[in-house]
């Protein structure tokens, strides 16, 4: 099926798309270069809020254990049923 060049031209004109196809050789090369661009930094940046949550919950766990944790002996409902 012939590619409708006018469609891509119209789209590029309308919304600023460029004709980079990730499946063609040139497009794939460009795509791979983009992927390697600051990957570690981006991963840390995206994961940073989750790291903050990890620290917060780790702190709560430390406090729970410091307060005695398993010393409390009231069974939960399923344990009471047993």
């Amino acid at each position, binding site marked *: 099926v012939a590619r409708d060049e006018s469609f891509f031209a119209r789209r590029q004109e309308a919304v600023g798309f460029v004709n980079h196809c990730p499946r063609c050789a040139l*497009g794939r090369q460009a795509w791979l270069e983009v992927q390697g661009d600051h990957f570690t930094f981006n991963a840390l940046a995206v994961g940073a809020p989750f790291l903050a949550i990890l620290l917060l919950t780790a702190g709560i766990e430390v406090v729970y254990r410091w307060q005695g944790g398993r010393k409390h002996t009231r069974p939960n409902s399923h344990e009471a049923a047993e």
Partner: protein
Amino acid sequence: MSALSRGPIISSGIWLGAGLGGFFDGIVLHQVLQWHNMLSSVRPPIDLLSMKYNMLWDGLFHAFCWFAVVLGVWRLWVAARRPGVACSTPTLIGGMLLGWGAFNFCEGLIDHQLLGLHHVHPGPGQLTWDLGFLALALVQIAAGWAAIARGADETHEPRSET
């Protein structure tokens, strides 16, 4: 009456709130409203390649959210089986609100303000939107804190039935 611990329930709620809050952000702000993408201020999605780049990082963000929810469910399961843990609904809801707010606050501070990866609603007045997002996060944290305080009533041994 012996005090029961709520730490493990709060901790589980925080993970659930952070994960589900992240999904809310990704689904509503990234995909439905299309206000921003994960790296849209670094590489604006103005062509297919840049759009795919942002899609990848949106996907990795959702992967983080997915792990947070799984971790929250697992922590909740472990907490429910621990002796001396109060399975209080207000505490769990409060923990989730606290987690959602804490996640939004950290995300707003680190990704929006410090690193400038994206902004809530880029363009004129983006700072106002970003500050509003941070304010909303603080409201969520306060609401979560209040719910947890309300749940304190459920953390004591029930009176013996007569």
